[in-house]
């Protein structure tokens, strides 16, 4: 059980910055997911924690002590790779017992602990099998057992479930989660699958292009995404621009009331968002607040619901409508954006597209 701190970690490969000034504190016994698209620097970060690569700058602390000068083999950060990498020349028992053999643990104790850990990962009695005689899921469990047996300070999992089929992945998620909780082990895993991150992790750290975007409990990424990019990664592309005054956002389609947060967010140009599943369709006569008109552009029946695409003004929105919902393209519908579900996001697009957006913001301010 070890707390891990990453302090201003950066890593450059030539001109390419893979990880930029990353700061994160991981508590002892916590399970954290590094989430992000491929190439975002999450695996690089994991490898820096193991010591397989060194950060270009910054420090890594285990329980407050810098481990940068401790080589990988003595660091106690054990990695489970995406390919399970069972040693092909060894059987299951030899693979699982590898770390103990390296630490010169006696044969008797090794055999005992191998037996124990194989029961824990639900593979009792497979000691004599060769790696190639196992299914993908079994190999993954052996790889997990091989890591757990050395009682790592930190368990690192690099896309551990990526090579498994859908059903097996769900079983393995439960297994990994229950073992991690039971052993109280500090664990960090890398994934590009937001569903997996949400299901498995105590906290999620989302990275784009080597930069940490948002860290928090899984539900925060749904309720209060920090930026448009974060919202998009969690499958929410509903954005509406406006101008904020107090707890009201003035948009082209009318004022939208928000729950005023304790955080002091400055008045001015803002982007609001509501998740597709929180937007409600209401009928004509309603006089509720936060109702905006929208034009239907497409309808896809999904079985459990109907996926409705509309435009508010000229902005496309996705809405999860009831399965029985009927409408034609071009119909006008009325949408309720429930006050409790409206959140303000920082606009990533401004940062990337620069002055054009800034001019737009200035224009609306003049209005």
């Amino acid at each position, binding site marked *: 059980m070890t707390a891990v701190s990453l302090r201003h970690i950066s890593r450059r490969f030539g001109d390419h910055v893979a990880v930029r000034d990353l700061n994160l504190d991981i508590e002892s016994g916590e399970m954290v997911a590094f989430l992000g698209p491929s190439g975002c620097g999450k695996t690089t970060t994991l490898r820096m924690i*193991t010591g*397989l690569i060194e950060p270009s700058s910054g420090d890594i602390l285990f329980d407050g002590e810098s481990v940068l000068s401790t080589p*990988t*083999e*003595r*660091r*106690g*950060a*054990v*990695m489970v*790779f995406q*390919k399970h*990498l069972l*040693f*092909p*020349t*060894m059987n299951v028992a030899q693979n699982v017992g*590898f*770390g103990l*053999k*390296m*630490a010169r643990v006696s044969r008797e104790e090794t055999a005992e602990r191998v037996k124990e850990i194989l029961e824990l990962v639900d593979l009792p009695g497979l000691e004599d099998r060769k790696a190639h005689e196992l299914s993908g899921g079994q190999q993954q469990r052996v790889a997990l057992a*091989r*890591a757990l047996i*050395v009682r790592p300070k930190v368990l*690192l999992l690099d896309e551990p479930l990526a090579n498994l089929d859908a059903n097996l992945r769900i079983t393995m998620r439960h297994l990994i989660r229950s073992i991690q909780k039971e052993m109280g082990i500090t664990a960090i895993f890398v994934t590009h699958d937001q569903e997996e991150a949400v299901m498995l992790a105590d906290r999620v750290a989302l990275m784009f292009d080597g930069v940490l975007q948002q860290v928090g409990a899984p539900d925060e990424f749904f309720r209060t995404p920090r930026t448009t990019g974060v919202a998009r990664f969690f499958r929410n592309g509903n954005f509406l621009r406006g101008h904020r005054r107090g707890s009201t956002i003035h948009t082209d389609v009318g004022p939208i009331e928000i729950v005023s947060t304790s955080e002091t967010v400055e008045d001015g140009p803002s982007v609001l968002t509501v998740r597709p599943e929180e937007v409600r369709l209401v009928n004509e006569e309603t006089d509720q607040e936060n109702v905006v008109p929208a034009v239907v552009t497409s309808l896809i029946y999904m079985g459990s619901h109907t996926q409705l695409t509309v435009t508010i003004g000229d902005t496309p929105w996705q809405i999860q409508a009831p399965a029985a919902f009927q409408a034609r393209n071009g119909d006008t519908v009325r949408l309720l954006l429930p006050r409790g579900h409206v959140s303000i996001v920082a606009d990533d697009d401004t940062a990337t597209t620069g002055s054009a957006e800034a001019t737009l913001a200035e224009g609306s301010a003049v209005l």
Partner: protein
Amino acid sequence: MTSTPMTARRIRNGLKIPLMLAPALGLVVVLFGGGILVGLGQSLGYFPAIGLNEFTFSNYTTVLTDRNFLISLWLTFRIAAVTTVLSSVLAIAFTLVLREKFAGSKITTFLFQVPLPVPHLVAASGIILLITQSGLIARIATAVGLMDTPADFPALVFDKGGVAIILTFLWKEVPFVGLVILAILQSVGPQYEEQARTLGANARQRFRHVLLPLIMPGVMSTSIIIFAFTFANYEIPLLLGVRFPSTLPVVAFREYQDPDLALRPQAMAISIVLAVVAILLLIAYRRLARSAVK
């Protein structure tokens, strides 16, 4: 009712592969097998061309009881064994260095592989020019004052231990083994070692428990080829060896070429013994290697 055409097809399919292999197989069996059979016959005293028609083991008893034969056999074995072991060990050592990325690693890898296409004969001439007592190294050493005269240089070529022979073989075979190991290392990648490392294995342990078991099958099969090749090689020991003791292939060919045709059955007996010993050694080696890998 349905089984008859099925069976016919199965027979046809079953015959297809032997039939397709027949031309190549025939060539090997007739030329190679025929040669061995004639040689075996002559070694057993069946040589009608010079009027020998009686089967006898006397050639074998003559050869096997000859002390000079045993000296040659030991020399041949020693050269092959030393070459095999040294080329494997050196190749492993070289490839461990070569797979690291360092300044000039590409050119070094290229230079390492230069000997591969060079014929053994050329390699032998090169060795002569380099390390005889009148060779380049001896002259340079004398010129810079390390020795008084080139003759002080140790006799490595035309020596009884076969040092020059072994050196030539090594120059040729180390890159050969190295090529195989590099190919294995490339396909395996660094990941197994990284995995072992995070599990607490230090550099020595990673080599001993992860890398070596991965490359050993490749090293074993190439070393078998090298042993068989050097054990039966003729031209290198002929060029770089002393007149006595000679390696067995040299002795056998010398007797084969002797104007006295009566010596030919003995030459054949030597060749057959050479082949049998080589086969026995290789079988024993394979057994040993397999149990060692496990």
